[in-house]
């Protein structure tokens, strides 16, 4: 998600209560325990099985985060082989292939935080897929993965000259004779500074500095053509010089606002929406101190007291990707089924096709009656299909309704459900209201357990992160 504050986007809500700024970023002490472990696995990844949660629950925040910060080297991640087979991949299938490939990677990667940050950058430095040239889209995705916890300034430079971005925001059409301002504007407004921190003149002058970058779509090659570049003097954010795009990025990152912008954005992504100015300032100071290296800053956030505070707990709305991957992951399923992609589209998150250059607005905006229906229907299908048989733990639930309900609530929701919901789970498992066999038994076990799992996952708690 692009860095948004409450001022920018409706439907983004800060939790009630007050921040204690004095120790907000201090390391959280002691062993995590089940709820905090599940919270960390959801926020720094896409959730975990009961066994994953149990393992992390024994660790301290520092130990748990250290293991999350170990990333898969970019060279060890290969593109989906179908994309490389033959001269021209099937264009219509290419985006589908990419989406399935990435979702499967989110589900199975040994480095979930890396994929979580890749998803973050996809929503932040937004581009839309070019279905005719799928490698361009893949390469941008790989760039985000490579810089998942790398240097933000360097990533901003790289993404500015990335083919997908040059195409999406018309940078490739930006030439000295006829500047195109689209990228120059969004670079400041949505990617690095936010509105009201630059002038219209800054947009025009920055556009001049970005002239000359060209894309050969077929070969996925980006080149700089000095003939098409405006080498003249530009006045930008109070400085004057023969600036190039790299200079523009350096000047932007020297603005105190830039660190604040990313600090707010990261807090929105990991902790809670509309973070307090004091919290933003503290994270912005960390970003500057580490020269915009993300690993130490994200590590500090994920270890911090504020991250584990009750105010941050379930204080975010799960995005559709978090909801879908989280469901598979929590159930212990290791492969997506056919229903995931259409379900994501109906929930309002089609990977590689963000609705606007601002990415997905998030917060309350994820939940309308239409998208809620899509969420519930996804669960109904998932739990009604054969995938259930592959769940690593669901089939091992005890037959006694009370203990089965207890374990379902614990494993799916860390027991974050209302008393009435628990009663419903137990009586559903016990066969209340059903004409069929009254108590849970071998004959009705699968049908009954999957129905109860649906009821548990349909509760409000499971919609929240």
């Amino acid at each position, binding site marked *: 998600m692009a860095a948004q504050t409450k*001022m*920018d986007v*409706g*439907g983004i*809500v800060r*939790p*009630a209560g007050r921040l204690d700024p004095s120790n907000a970023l201090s390391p959280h002490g002691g062993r995590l325990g089940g709820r905090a472990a599940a919270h960390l696995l959801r926020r720094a990844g896409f959730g975990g099985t009961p066994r994953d949660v149990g393992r992390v629950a024994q660790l301290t925040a520092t130990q748990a985060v250290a293991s999350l910060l170990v990333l898969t080297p970019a060279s060890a991640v290969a593109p989906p082989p179908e994309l490389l087979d033959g001269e021209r991949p099937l264009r219509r299938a290419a985006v589908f292939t990419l989406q399935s490939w990435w979702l499967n990677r989110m589900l199975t990667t040994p480095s979930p935080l890396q994929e979580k940050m890749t998803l973050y950058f996809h929503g932040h430095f937004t581009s839309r897929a070019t279905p005719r040239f799928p490698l361009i889209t893949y390469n941008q995705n790989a760039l985000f993965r490579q810089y998942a916890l790398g240097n933000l300034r360097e990533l901003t430079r790289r993404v500015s000259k990335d083919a997908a971005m040059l195409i999406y925001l*018309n940078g490739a*059409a*930006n*030439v000295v004779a*006829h*500047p*195109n*301002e*689209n990228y120059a504007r969004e670079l400041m407004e*949505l990617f690095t500074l936010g*509105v009201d921190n630059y002038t219209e003149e800054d*947009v025009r002058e920055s556009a001049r500095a970005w002239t000359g970058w060209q894309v050969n779509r077929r070969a996925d090659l980006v080149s700089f053509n000095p003939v098409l570049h405006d080498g003249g003097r530009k006045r930008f954010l109070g400085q004057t010089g023969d600036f190039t795009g790299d200079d523009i990025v350096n000047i932007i990152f020297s603005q105190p606002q830039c660190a604040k912008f990313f600090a707010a954005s990261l807090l929105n992504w990991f902790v809670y929406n509309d973070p307090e100015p004091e919290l933003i300032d503290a994270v912005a100071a960390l970003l500057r101190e580490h020269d915009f290296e993300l690993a130490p800053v994200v590590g500090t956030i994920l270890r911090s007291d504020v991250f584990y505070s*009750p105010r941050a*707990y*379930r*204080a975010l*709305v799960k995005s559709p990707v978090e909801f879908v991957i989280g469901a598979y992951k929590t159930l212990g399923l290791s492969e997506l089924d056919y229903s995931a992609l259409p379900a994501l589209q*109906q929930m*309002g998150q089609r990977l590689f096709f963000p609705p*606007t*250059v601002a990415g997905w*607005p998030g*917060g*309350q*905006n994820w*939940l*309308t*009656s*239409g*998208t*809620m*229906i899509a969420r*519930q*229907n996804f669960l*109904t*299908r998932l739990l009604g299909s054969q995938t259930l048989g592959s769940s690593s733990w669901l089939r091992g639930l005890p037959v006694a309704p009370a203990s089965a309900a207890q374990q379902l609530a614990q494993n799916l929701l860390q*027991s*974050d*459900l*209302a*008393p*009435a*919901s628990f009663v419903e789970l137990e*009586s*559903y498992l016990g066969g209340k*209201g059903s004409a069929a066999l009254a108590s849970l038994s071998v004959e009705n076990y699968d049908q009954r357990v999957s*129905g109860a799992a649906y*009821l548990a996952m*349909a*509760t*409000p708690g499971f*919609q*929240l992160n």
Partner: protein
Amino acid sequence: MRRRNFLLAAVSGLAVVANPEHVFSRALAQAPLPGLPGSEGRCLVLINLYGGNDGLNCVVPYGDDRYYQMRPGLAIDRSSVLAIDKRVGLNPGMRSLKALYDKGMVAIVQGVGYPNPDHSHFRSTEIWQTASPGSYQHTGWLGRYFDEAGLRQENLFKGVAVSKVLPEVLVSDRTDIPAVPALNQYSMIADSNAVARDAFSRQARDRRLPFASPYLAHVMEIEADAQSSSEELPKLIAGYKSRAAYPSTGLGRSLALAAQIVGSNLGTKAIYVEHGSFDTHVSQKMTQNQLLLQFSNAIGAFYEDLAAHGNDRRVLTLTFSEFGRRIEENGSRGTDHGEASPLFLVGGGVRGGLYGTLPDLSATNMGNLRYSVDFRSVYATVLERWLGRPAAPVLNGTFQQLPVLA
């Protein structure tokens, strides 16, 4: 009487049969909707032409030589413009709209904008949707209209967004408006399992959760609304049969659903629909012409359908777009973000014609057209003359009304 039964009774005219097994979380015990003086049965359909519709290639100033000088690669040929008078005409794709114009059913307001234009899509969209150029507001102007008119929770379908995401214009402090992307995406499979459905609705009502979340109340409300509205809507509109051949485009499908909602008399006062994207930085001509053709054809079918059911005087359609575009074309045969542009009002209650002043291509603000009509004048007119509510509390100010409605 519970809401569900009230709605069914209102539609069918039949006596209500109580069905105690369908107990939803917000079962209704409230009185029916209050009528709005002079506006009974009226509905506003708001079409967002998102991305920034270029006004000059939409309502074309073909009598002005400067238009052709400033847009050598982009201007619409004089010969193909659908002339309204000697100075302006419509984009050649808009034949259906022109036919409605010739019947006196279209008002074109030229040069609409707002003070101190912001060229950001997001801020500018927000300004048009919240009707608040000077400060940030979290509610939309139609959301405030619902609150102000007292149209709260009694009727789930007092407003409908035909979109995946609830647009800001329908966000309010006290009401929940369903976003219905399409009817076939609006039913719960679990509804067919009576045991699961009833269990779901019972558990969705218990608010004693062992954690606090700023989104909890919203999630619970949406869960309850999703279940009850998905059960109700298909039944409520099942009796309506469309009598026009809608184009098989996104907008065509959206307006077909809008006509069905209007024709089913659910008490719906506002329907939001979107069409785009008009963000034409490169190769604008083909893209925009195609989008305008789709827009015009869908509107043509919509009013044909409405008229066949006697509803064309009940529905006012209003378009908006976050801004127009720069007067001069850029180097990519496209245009960058601009300022003022025209908007359309369509319907049997419209006083057709051209309003506002013709854009002056020489009196510009850094290459942008200056606006001559504040967009809030249009909203004020719609609120007072169409929806029958005072505009000032909704718009936080008084704006001049336009004589665009009969």
